[in-house]
């Protein structure tokens, strides 16, 4: 096995061959990832618009305008709210399910059931919940009323609309994180639990003392992945609420999409938003690594 690391084709003369292998991928990567990334930064300093060939350099004007754009502030607030409010459920629910599944029988079948929604597109997920929650004829309100609960138009109420989007997303992605947690749990040596049990530790004590600390790298992965994804939330909002009621569920990417492709066709301004979003995501990622790394040695 160790031989495999260095084995095979190790030759200094073969560097030309190496780059011939890399060429198609690097071309794709440079043209459609690196170049757009940098071009977006350039656009954010111009007054580029859809269908206007001439662009002028406008310095920081697009960024300054964002300071006054109250709809951008609302969308930023909503996006951060969504990210923060959904983090605990998305960290905890799949984790609890994974711990339970890891102990129980029929793991493969149950895992499959929870995973299935993740194979659906965001549009399908949105349409599904739109129909479930239909205020007049949807089954959710019917059963809620039957149980004596407060039926209402969940998506039309600004206090509940964002929570519906969170619930929908949790339902959608739980299976994905469940699989990742299960893999992490498999890597924890069984005898740790056995010796803890010998020392008289119960299931809950073992969870806090063994499972959680040893899962720290997996938790970090879930934490960062979810954060990067949730700062870019768009599809759920587009299908379920279009950002409403009012601007209660308007998010940054939706605002960006509308600025660039729906209302103003203002590419410069949209690019500035994209880079502000990128900066925020980077800062959060670094913070999370700082927060959770340092402790991974056990």
């Amino acid at each position, binding site marked *: *096995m160790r031989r*495999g*690391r260095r084995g*095979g*084709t*190790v*030759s*200094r003369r*073969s560097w030309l061959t*190496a*780059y011939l*292998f*890399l060429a*198609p*991928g690097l071309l794709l*990567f440079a*043209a459609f990832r690196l170049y757009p*990334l940098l*071009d*977006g930064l350039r656009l954010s300093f111009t007054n580029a618009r859809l269908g206007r060939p001439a662009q002028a350099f406008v310095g920081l004007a697009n960024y300054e305008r964002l300071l006054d754009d109250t709809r951008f502030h609302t969308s930023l607030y909503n996006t951060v709210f969504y990210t923060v409010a959904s983090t605990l459920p998305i960290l905890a629910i799949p984790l609890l*399910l994974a711990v*339970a599944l890891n102990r*129980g029988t*029929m793991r493969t079948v*149950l*895992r499959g059931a929870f*995973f*299935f*929604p993740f*194979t*659906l*597109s965001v*549009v399908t997920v949105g349409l*599904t919940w*739109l*129909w*479930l929650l239909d205020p007049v004829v949807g*089954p959710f309100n*019917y059963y809620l009323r039957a149980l004596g609960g407060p039926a209402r138009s969940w998506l039309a109420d600004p206090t509940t609309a964002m929570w519906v989007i969170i619930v929908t997303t949790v339902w959608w992605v739980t299976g994905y994180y469940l*699989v*990742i947690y299960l*893999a992490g749990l498999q890597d924890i040596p069984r005898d740790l639990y056995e010796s803890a049990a010998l020392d008289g530790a119960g299931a809950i004590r073992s969870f806090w003392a063994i499972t959680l600390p040893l899962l720290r790298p*997996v938790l970090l992965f*879930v934490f960062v*992945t979810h954060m*990067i994804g949730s*700062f*870019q939330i*768009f*599809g759920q909002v587009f*299908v379920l609420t279009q950002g409403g009621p009012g601007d209660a569920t308007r998010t940054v*990417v939706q605002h960006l*999409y509308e600025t*660039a*492709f729906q209302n103003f066709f203002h*590419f410069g301004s*949209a690019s500035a938003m*994209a880079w502000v979003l990128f900066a925020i*995501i980077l800062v959060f*990622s670094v913070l999370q690594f700082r927060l959770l790394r340092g402790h991974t040695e056990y």
Partner: protein
Amino acid sequence: MALTVGLGALAVLWLLPVVWVFVTSLKHTPDIIRVPPEWIPWPATLEHYVEVLFSSSRTARIGRAFINSIIVSIGTVALVVATSALAAYPLARMRFPGRNLVFILIIGSLMIPNAVVLVPQYVLVQQLGWLSTYQGLIVPEAAMTFAFGVFLLRQFFLLMPGELEDAARIDGANTWQVFSRIVLPLSQPVLAALSIFAFRSAWNDFLWPLIAVNKAEMFPLPVALALLRGAYSSESYGPIMAGAALSALPLLLVFLVANRRIVEGVRLSGLKG
């Protein structure tokens, strides 16, 4: 035992929304809005499927969108698998100047949020004249998944024992022959996992096709479905749910056949991420 029963009940509850979509899609229009909700679609009908697939004049036809999605997803899988296998091989098995730099650039790009390249990518695709074309969907989709593919395949190639490659080399095989006749056949499981992953992301992507396509006959499924919603909103959920069910079908089939492999792919994507 109690735990399994509890989890089983929760799993059933988890799948109820999906069941409700299929049930609705099979009901006659007046039965759909009947209260209390009926969970058995009887008498059943396929009229909504026929309508969205072939005869709806209100919006993009789901039948056409289905074909578009198949073409785009298969094209993306082919491009991702080819480019990332070719790129991952030297990154794992050869030493050459610039290797670490190339690898760090590619892996670092996993941190780039797709939303950040949306506008400039649109500008690029427009300049290439690729708006509303298959290549305008396939190539950016593939570029999005390429870095993950390199990461996944490189992990796999690194752990492959080198003896077979050495033996082939001694028999006079060149690097291309070693790669295509020894390495690729040995990599089938991981190539399958990557294919499913790439298929899923291309099949389900919504934001990019929403802006890169402005001709109804070129819409892939998610965009066509989102429009279906507007076209039918207040009258009937039947056609919308039939469209939703159709869009879930291919991955449901893949999922039933290759549950293990999908899960394996996800697992690999998470570990050491």
